[in-house]
């Protein structure tokens, strides 16, 4: 979706302000929010792309004015309610009022260290890769209302395939419950002038990781 999350190239957000000696968490609830999200992800009720889509569908004003972990908390509340895993009345009460739904699995403390790594998103290909390194490609001019990983600033632009990264779960379909639909993934390199116009700094190049359905031969 063409949402507020798609920030690449926007103006007006000001300087990057780094906090010296930043702590891992700024408050206890941030730590719990992260851990709750990890533990619920482990149960298999949703995929990483569905959680990204959950954040992206927060109202734009909420997205811009909420801290990172607040967005995670709001997303988690929203998703457990949407999936019928808990009721808004229960969250408001702070206690379960009905029994839980059966889930595939539950994260135990003993298992935690084995789950800190990310899963693999590689999948067997459905067919041969259409492009190879060195190929000129044009990104498609698409504006799906649902989740996509093709950022706006890199749509309808000509770039060069730099590398093939294997065949991966396709976020655009898995996010809307239409299956993993594995697609070839490429690193596609753009000249800054292609993205930002003739006045852009010619010594800058930007790459995206682009799934094959985002690309056509140029």
């Amino acid at each position, binding site marked *: 979706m063409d949402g507020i999350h*798609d920030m*690449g*190239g*926007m103006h007006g*957000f*000001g*300087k*990057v*302000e*780094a906090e010296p000696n930043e702590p*891992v*968490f*700024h*408050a206890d609830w941030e*730590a*719990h*929010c*992260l*851990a*709750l999200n990890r*533990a*619920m992800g482990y149960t298999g009720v949703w995929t990483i792309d569905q959680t*990204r889509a959950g954040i992206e569908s927060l109202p734009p004003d909420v997205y811009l004015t909420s801290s*990172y972990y607040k967005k995670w908390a709001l997303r988690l*509340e929203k998703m*457990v309610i949407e999936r019928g895993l*808990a009721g808004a009345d229960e*969250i*408001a009460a*702070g206690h*379960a009022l009905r029994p839980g739904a059966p*889930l595939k699995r*539950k994260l*135990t*403390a003993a*298992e*935690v*260290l*084995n789950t*800190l*790594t*990310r*899963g*693999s*998103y590689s999948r067997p290909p459905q067919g041969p890769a259409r492009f190879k390194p060195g190929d000129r490609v044009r990104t498609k001019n698409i504006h799906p209302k649902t989740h996509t*990983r093709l950022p706006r*600033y890199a749509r309808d632009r000509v770039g060069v395939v730099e590398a093939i*990264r294997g065949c991966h779960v396709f976020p655009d379909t898995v996010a809307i419950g239409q299956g993993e639909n594995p697609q070839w993934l490429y690193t596609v390199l753009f000249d*800054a002038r292609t*993205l930002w116009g003739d006045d*852009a*700094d010619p*010594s*800058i190049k*930007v*790459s*995206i*990781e*682009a*799934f094959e359905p985002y690309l056509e031969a140029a």
Partner: protein
Amino acid sequence: MQLRVRALETVLAEKGYIEPAAIDAIIEAYETKVGPHTGARIVAKAWSDPAFKQALLADASKAVASFGLVNRVGDHLIAVENTPKLHNMIVCTLCSCYPWEVLGLPPVWYKSAPYRSRAVNDPRGVLADFGVTLPPGTDIRVWDSTAETRFIVLPMRPAGTDGWSEEKLASLVTRDSMIGTGLPKHPSEAA
């Protein structure tokens, strides 16, 4: 938010979806085990061991697999090398993708609108915000993490560190130097 998150945690625990002890174990792991010290060790080894450096640049996931991490790194890690001609910078414009296994949790600025919006069209300005000016003639390459591939920058080894141990070298490797918004520390700042 404290009360709101606690309410959610209580409900999810009472429903039987989560185990409170697992929540505590996750928090402890991120506070004490996972962090940029891992990435710093990887960089220091690459600076010291040419064969490891070659393996790292060829297939970073494989190269760091035996690195004494708490666990296997996900299989899509890519290391990108800075040179006198090229400076790499990592961003995720769409959300906050970051190589957690080797750098820990991302800092707030990495997830912020200013960084995500400007890294791709004004990387030199972003570097200036961090007090970094690259030598003239250095090109910049920005990597937007738009899929499940994750990137770590292999910064240039500082001059004047010949014969240093990996441990001492690692003390020069900052988190920001592995994201590309900073440079390694000067040898006089070694731990």
